[in-house]
């Protein structure tokens, strides 16, 4: 599958229908919420027990994992790729750079679901939780994204 032929809505439909507990994070999540930022990749935080289910769902789209499920579990992350790149985080919890422990199960419980098209939805963390995930790597661009998310949060709070 070439990048230009990538059917994005079908990609999300496939993930939804797989039943895998997958949260869209990273800049694509910001975009879905209405923040116009540029990004190349897809980032998901996936429940650690759903790796095989997730991989099998996207395999027909010729997205192949860089590691086996077992390897991914021990590494805490892996990549699915062809011309597209999907970064997948699979840890039960991840610490932020400044020491806050962020737990997948808690984010999943609080998740927001955004409609993409009729019958297709994507799950994203709440704004507060998305801000926490932006503190995992804490690169300068993550801090810029946090400020955009804070602006959006201030609007949604009113």
């Amino acid at each position, binding site marked *: 599958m070439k990048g230009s032929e990538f059917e994005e809505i079908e990609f999300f439909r496939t993930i939804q229908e797989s039943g895998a507990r997958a949260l869209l994070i990273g800049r694509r999540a910001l975009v879905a919420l209405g923040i116009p930022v540029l990004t190349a990749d897809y980032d998901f935080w996936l429940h650690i027990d759903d790796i095989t289910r997730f991989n099998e769902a996207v395999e027909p789209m010729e997205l192949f994992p860089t590691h086996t499920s077992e390897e991914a579990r021990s590494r805490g992350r892996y990549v699915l790729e062809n011309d597209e790149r999907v970064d997948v985080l699979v840890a039960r919890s991840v610490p932020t750079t*400044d020491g806050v422990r962020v737990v997948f199960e808690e984010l999943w419980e609080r998740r927001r679901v955004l409609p993409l098209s009729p019958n*297709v939805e994507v799950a994203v963390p709440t704004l507060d939780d998305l801000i926490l995930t932006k503190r995992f790597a804490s690169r300068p661009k993550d801090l810029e994204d946090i400020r955009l998310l804070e602006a959006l949060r201030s*609007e949604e709070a009113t």
Partner: protein
Amino acid sequence: MKIVQPPSLKTRKRLIAVAERRLTPHEVREALAIPLTNSEREESLSLIRWFRRRYPTAGERLAYVRRAYRRWSAVQEA
């Protein structure tokens, strides 16, 4: 109109390294302690409102960014 030349490969690599650098906990705490100013908030919200108005659904927003990224990549490769 002044024609701006794109940066060299070396400069681009340096910029990427700076942008991708992982900050220290101290740097993160310092950055997070800086509150949003009203003008920064309004500027960000103005952009967000435009984007949400122009692309009302999450699906449309994601599709727009895919197109924008393709255009940006094409310029970078040219």
